[in-house]
């Protein structure tokens, strides 16, 4: 690698995080630390019924007996769970504001700065947004319009109040609280997140979207999202996330559950841009996320698309349980790590039903001194006749101090299963850079073009409104100039 390339790479690794500002707003927090009183405090703040509190306390008692999963290729100091705030809300948020006139102008300004205007007329056409600030949902747009179709799109807190029958039936049905320590932790202390229910036969006419923002210091964000697509329905959902620049690490442990009934389809896209830490690896979000979808009914389909550019640590495996016959699970992922970021991400496809199909396309890009691991598990249970999986994992290394790792597990108990696996690792190619530059493109433009080309297969799976944004984000993650 020649010196100019190294210079360019060096400038990339000093990339600036443009969402790193802090909103100065008075907030309300209980004491730090995790105990039964905190859980009772959260539950009370949310005005929850007793059954919900008991559900949380049960999860907490499970968590107390559990240890963090340690099998990932990640290095980080012990998390001190007693040194975290478990709830933070802007003052005066006892009740969710009825409309924007009740929202603190500072909050509206924050979201304008993030490019997420809350006024419906300014919102991206055809996208309904629920915005979550620290532990509370601030606003949900286009709610009225969706209600006419019988679609429920609200914060999970509101759903617990208004739709207890759905919550009782589905919450924790895909990710049991006792699954592992982060799911138990989330179940005990989750604060807000989104709830979606699409009634039978309804195709949701717009993209649903949640925007998560961590603002307060030393505060964990534990969001919980639950999406249910009833028979024959369709929904496309997108989440985005950012956080201010801080020198301390912050914990984000979300749980997302999807349920697709017969003939239903859920498309779930994530653009994750939490603060990644600075160029020396100081600060950044610890992102321990559990996402799991259940294709419960025949011919159902769940598709995960993720663009992971942020966080100091990403531990995330959006998975599909393919229970219904002929059901389909898909996972498309771009993970970019720079500086000292560490990502251990992938998916789990569990084939239970007959003729189930899964497809995994993973693109990992490592820069700086980062480590990027794809970890996947594809399993075929005994009754999964004629099930198929196709996996493709490609890694691109930029520079010579980073690492790319691929850890695929395959487990088949049915000999009619068909499994295809392709993997490649390549370095960014000097000849490609030379070629682009000979046509007049700058070094940075050339790298960005080549990396975007490498990710194209995944980026084109994103809803159109976000594909362009995601492309820009990919470029920004590489560039030093924007910020």
């Amino acid at each position, binding site marked *: 690698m*020649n*010196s*100019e390339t190294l210079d360019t790479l060096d400038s990339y690794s000093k990339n600036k995080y443009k969402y790193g500002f802090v909103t100065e707003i008075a907030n309300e927090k209980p004491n730090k630390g995790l105990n039964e009183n905190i859980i009772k405090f959260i539950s009370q703040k949310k005005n929850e019924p007793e059954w919900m509190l008991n559900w949380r306390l049960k999860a907490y008692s499970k968590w107390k007996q559990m240890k963090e999963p340690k099998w990932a290729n990640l290095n980080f100091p012990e998390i001190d769970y007693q040194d975290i705030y478990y709830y933070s809300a802007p003052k005066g948020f006892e009740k969710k504001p009825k409309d924007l006139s009740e929202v603190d102008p500072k909050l509206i300004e924050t979201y304008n700065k993030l490019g997420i205007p809350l006024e419906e007329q300014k919102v991206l056409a055809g996208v309904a947004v629920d915005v979550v600030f620290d532990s509370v949902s601030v606003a949900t747009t286009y709610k009225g319009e969706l209600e006419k179709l019988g679609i429920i799109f609200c914060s999970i807190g509101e759903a617990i109040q208004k739709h207890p029958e759905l919550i009782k039936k589905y919450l924790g049905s895909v990710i049991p609280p006792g699954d592992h320590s982060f799911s138990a932790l989330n179940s005990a202390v989750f604060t807000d997140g989104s709830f979606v229910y699409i009634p039978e036969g309804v195709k949701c006419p717009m993209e649903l979207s949640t925007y998560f923002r961590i603002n307060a210091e030393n505060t964990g964000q534990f969001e919980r999202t639950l999406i249910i697509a009833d028979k024959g329905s369709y929904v496309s959902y997108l989440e985005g996330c950012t956080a201010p620049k801080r020198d301390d690490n912050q914990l984000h442990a979300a749980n997302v559950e999807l349920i697709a009934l017969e003939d239903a389809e859920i498309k779930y896209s994530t653009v994750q841009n939490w603060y990644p830490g600075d160029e020396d690896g100081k600060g950044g979000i610890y992102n321990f996320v559990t996402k799991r979808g259940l294709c419960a009914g025949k011919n159902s389909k769940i598709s995960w698309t993720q663009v992971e550019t942020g966080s100091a640590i990403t531990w995330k495996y959006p998975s599909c349980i393919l229970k219904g016959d002929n059901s389909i699970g898909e996972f498309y992922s771009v993970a970019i790590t720079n500086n000292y970021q560490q990502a251990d991400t992938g998916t789990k496809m569990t084939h239970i039903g007959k003729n189930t199909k899964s497809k995994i396309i993973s693109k990992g890009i490592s820069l700086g001194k980062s480590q990027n691991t794809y970890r996947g598990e594809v399993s075929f249970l005994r009754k999964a006749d004629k099930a198929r999986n196709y996996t493709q994992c490609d890694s691109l290394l930029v520079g010579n101090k980073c690492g790319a790792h691929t850890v695929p597990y395959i487990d088949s108990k049915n000999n009619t299963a068909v499994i295809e696996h392709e993997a490649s690792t390549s370095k960014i*190619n000097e*000849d*490609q850079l*030379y*070629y*682009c*530059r*000979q*046509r*007049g*493109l*700058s*070094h940075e*433009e050339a790298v960005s*073009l*080549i990396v*975007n*080309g*490498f*990710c*194209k*297969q995944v980026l084109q799976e994103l809803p159109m409104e976000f594909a362009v944004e995601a492309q820009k984000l990919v470029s920004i993650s590489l560039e030093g100039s924007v910020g």
Partner: protein
Amino acid sequence: MFLEIKDLSVKIENKNILKSLNLNVNKGEVHAIMGPNGSGKSTLANVLAGKEDYEILDGKINFKDNDLFDLNIEERAQEGMFLAFQYPVEIPGVNITPFLHSAINSKRKRMNEEEIDNLSFAKLLKSKASDLGINIDMLKRSVNTGFSGGEKKRYEILQMSILNPDLAILDETDSGLDIDALKIVTDGVNKLKTKDNSFLIITHYQKLLDYIKPDYVHVMVNGSIVKSGGSEIAAEIEKDGFQKFQ
């Protein structure tokens, strides 16, 4: 002088490739450089384009009143230098349209010209492609990815016609082409030729020069130009090979 190469000596990995090479090219001229394998022809092309693997030991290159060594690869390209590669590299996932669109605009920016918008560019690309007999479907594919040798070369000529360079260097563009492809490529070059641009055509075989008439032919052997003249030299080489120049 449009392009002036003076006493150029270049080495790569302790091997001297170019030795006191001199060459002058005026506006509107077509020069052919012929020579046996390993004589340093491609090195000359890459040194002109600015590839960084070479060590310049001595000499100067002036291009359009610039000291060429002050400009990096992309600046040379933006100044109007184009290299049609001998082995065009594949760039998976990158479509020709945004690729060339950025390329043409970076050139226009340097020349303080207005950038060309998406729609006008798409039209330009289509019309140039049909001029060169290139199927529109080829424009939907990724740059050079999965192309045959002939397709890659035609694609180079298409890019050349879009970027409309002042100096086009064709590095063994004829290698690996059948007669039909060769005709398409050379037709493209002839269409582009004006009194304001120049061509440097590097080739091993005389065949190419049946289709493009050079004003000057230079014989390059062992890192230097040993003989210059008109197209009669090409005929000599055709008859007797490079033996007598060595």
